[in-house]
């Protein structure tokens, strides 16, 4: 069963719909007591402001819940803002984040391109991570963001995208991972990526 963290994120329902359509059982988690032992993987969706999101996660106890599950070894996938929150700190509101991965989240400032980075862009698989299984390299995914992940360790960069600069569009390791784009809005390969994440657990 896939647990989806429900803290009012704008893309919650499209993520939920996509996971259900793939045939997985899902459970929305609004507080720690919603947890059941059937949950084998977690997803942290997200759209919007990092500070607002962290305030909600902290005040609802969901930050503690995620900390607990991740230290127990439960896999976690962050999507868009949910990915940025996996790092230690975001410059958006200068807020401390979950810190499952070392690094920060700066704003796009040195690029000559329009902000937000909005639309389809290619992702280069740099580590042959299982998230990219059955997805051609440099496939396009749909992005909408103004801040980007800057992991401290090169080994935490799983995918890269160019938007004036090369930035980390997929980060993590075999347990905690995040994608800057919206797989739930990226057509068939986006759905494939979600399936790749979920199928590591059970249906």
């Amino acid at each position, binding site marked *: 069963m896939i647990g989806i963290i429900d803290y009012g994120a704008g893309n919650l*329902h499209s993520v939920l719909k*996509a996971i259900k359509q793939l045939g997985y059982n899902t459970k929305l988690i609004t507080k720690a007591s919603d947890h059941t032992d059937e949950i084998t993987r977690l997803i942290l969706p997200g759209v919007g402001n990092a500070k607002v999101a962290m305030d909600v996660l902290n005040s609802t106890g969901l930050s503690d819940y995620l900390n607990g599950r991740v230290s127990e070894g439960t896999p976690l996938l962050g999507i868009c803002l949910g990915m940025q929150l996996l790092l230690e700190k975001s410059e958006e509101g200068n807020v401390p984040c979950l810190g499952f991965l070392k690094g920060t989240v700066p704003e796009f400032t040195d690029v000559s391109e329009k*902000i937000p980075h909005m639309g389809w*862009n290619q992702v280069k698989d740099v580590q042959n991570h299982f998230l990219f299984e059955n997805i051609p390299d440099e496939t396009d995914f749909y992005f*909408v963001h103004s801040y980007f992940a800057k992991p401290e360790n090169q080994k935490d960069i799983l995918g890269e995208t*160019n938007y004036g600069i090369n930035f980390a569009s997929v980060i993590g390791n075999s347990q905690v991972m995040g994608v800057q784009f919206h797989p739930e809005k990226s057509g068939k390969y*986006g759905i494939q990526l979600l399936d790749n994440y979920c199928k590591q657990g059970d249906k």
Partner: protein
Amino acid sequence: MLRKRIVPAIDVLNDQAVKYVQFRNPTIIGDPAELGKKYTEDGADELIYLDTTASLKNQDLKLEWIQRVAEQVNIPFSVIGGVRTVEDFKNLLRAGADKVGVNSAAVQRPELLKEAADIYGKQCVVLGLDAMPIYNDNEEIIRWEVYTHSGYEKTGLDVVEWAQQAAELGAGEIICTSIHKDGMKNGYDVALIKLLSEKVNIPIIASGGAGKIEHIEEVFSEGKADAALVASMIHYGDYTIGEIKSYLQTKNINVRLT
């Protein structure tokens, strides 16, 4: 590199996808969700639904078809038409729309853009902007003015100034429709799109006038548009989205091929 987007526009009346002939006589061309799914499979990068249902009595009906689109379509889609309040944004986003477009209501009360962006983020606030050129005595275009209410009301606002103000307030994207080009099939207003693309730092979707595949190339290469809206070209079966994109690729326009 970021791709140039091809965005089909689908008119919706009540809960049916329709085609207008000379802005009148709607004929049903299918179900909004099924048509959206088909265009997605053909390679559309995003969809725009223009809800032309006027009556407020149809609010529930409106949300029902949007929910069906959200169920069946796995690329982003915008809904435009009749949005007046932050409450309208909430209802449309909750029904599953990724972006909400606002046109006349933003001219009447520009703060609406800021209110919506503060709550939902700029990425889901789309400004619909209808433009008409103003000519001097030598019939040269001197500037463009904003029109509202489907092109019936002149506002006196300068298009570039309004676009810049809207971007400042919270619009994340602009769909610019050239009223005098719409339905004429003789090409986009490339000069206007170029001007907007240069003066405004948010993506510009060019709308109005596409009749031939070359027009799309022109609005990307000369007009510097971020996205091109296509309607009758694909609804009538003259071209498929796949054909349009293959052509653009041969002209070195950076498009996503599926």
